[in-house]
């Protein structure tokens, strides 16, 4: 008895360790189904595991759906941004294509001109409704000086009224203060085209005997020295015989769409004036 008390710890430890090793030797290689107690324990733990797994799956599902929604939302934002970028790229490409077409026309137009020219972009329009002027991005440093004529692929645009080193202001044909010497291309009748309300032009000083019809093309005469001869100004859109006076009242629709004016050509022919 004293021996057991004295060596209680090592005896018990030895017994249990040996018991564990014996169990290990006995059960090693045997399946759980061969151990009845294990079968019952699994029956006990199985439903708990299934319940926990079910709850976990539910949370997992909720979590994943939440994340899926978050990810879908993020992806939606990303795709929207991409779509907006692509739309902008499409717009840019269309712009480039349109600009290319315009510039091509300008180039063709330029090749028909015998004057040195400077291409410029319209960078500003007149803020007032009364006047029709625009600002272009070329100025005196590019040779652009007052009184120089400005044209585009469609026809005459106006003339330079002042210039700074890098910018210039144009007086458009449709401005009330603008006037250009013109001729009716078909009949060679001569007059002066001035700006009129509504963005139209008015052909002045055309006497009753002159032959003017709707649809006639009106071109610059080159007589005033600003524009070269033969630049298209517009098309006759209305003809009225004046009741009180010797002149007809002729309305011209400008060849140039001034509302969509973007690129212009400045003809560097001021010297013509001086001559």
């Amino acid at each position, binding site marked *: 008895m004293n021996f057991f008390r004295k060596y*209680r*710890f090592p005896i*018990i*430890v030895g017994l*249990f*360790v040996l*018991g*564990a*090793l014996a*169990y*290990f*030797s*006995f*059960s*090693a*290689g*045997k*399946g*759980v189904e061969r*151990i009845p*107690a*294990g079968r019952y*324990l*699994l029956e*006990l*733990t199985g439903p*708990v*595991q299934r319940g*926990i*797994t079910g709850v*976990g799956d539910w949370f*997992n599902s909720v979590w994943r759906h939440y994340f899926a929604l978050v990810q879908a939302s993020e992806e939606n934002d990303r795709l929207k941004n991409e779509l907006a970028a692509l739309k902008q790229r499409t717009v840019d490409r269309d712009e480039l294509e349109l600009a290319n077409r315009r510039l091509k026309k300008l180039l063709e137009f330029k090749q028909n001109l015998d004057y040195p020219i400077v291409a410029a972009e319209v960078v500003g329009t007149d803020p007032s409704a009364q006047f029709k002027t625009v600002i272009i991005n070329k100025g005196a440093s590019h040779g652009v000086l007052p009184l120089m004529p400005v044209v585009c692929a469609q026809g005459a645009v106006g003339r330079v009224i002042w210039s700074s080193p890098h910018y210039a202001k144009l007086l458009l044909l449709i401005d009330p203060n603008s006037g250009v010497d013109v001729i009716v291309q078909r009949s060679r009748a001569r007059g002066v085209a001035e700006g009129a309300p509504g963005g139209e032009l008015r052909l002045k000083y055309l006497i009753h005997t002159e032959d003017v019809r709707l649809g006639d093309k009106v071109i610059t005469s080159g007589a005033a020295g600003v524009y070269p001869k033969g630049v298209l100004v517009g098309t006759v859109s209305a003809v009225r015989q004046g009741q009180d006076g010797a002149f007809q009242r002729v309305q011209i629709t400008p060849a140039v769409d001034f509302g969509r004016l973007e690129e212009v050509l400045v003809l560097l022919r001021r010297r013509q004036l001086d001559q």
Partner: protein
Amino acid sequence: MRREPSRWPRALGTAVMGLLLAVLGTTAFSWWALGPLRLEPLIVLVVSAGYRLPLVLGFIVVMFLGYVADLISGGVMGLNVVIFTVVYVICQLARRKLDITSWPFQMLSVGVLTILDHLLTAGAVTLTVPSYVPPVNLPLLLLAQGLINAFTAPLFFGLNEALVGMLARFWPAERKVTP
């Protein structure tokens, strides 16, 4: 003033908590596994039993925990019983020689004994399965697992103590000594 719960509520509480944590180990804890590293609450309970339960009763509880671990882990039957017994014996020896009441010491014990647990497991598997080759980074994995178990030990110690305390409150013999 509250006295230490007697051995029976502690033994029962540790066994029940072991069963519960073993089930959780196969479900919830595995969802937060960091690769091969995961929470191993049973080794914490074995250490707890080794430090707090009387020798014979502790052996029974630890062997039960080993049995449960063998059942649900799907490994070699009896392996965890032997390993948990060895760990328990070491804790009982340490309990006789060292002051094991401080939590840092218990955490350190959990970490060190986790490494021993895995070394024994690897050794046993190497012996029983000749084709088994331990991973090259086994030392690193052991160290990481030891750290994880050591740092999560207070949580499982706490859970176990809560359950033991709850059982002690309803244990007939405990009602007289617990104010």
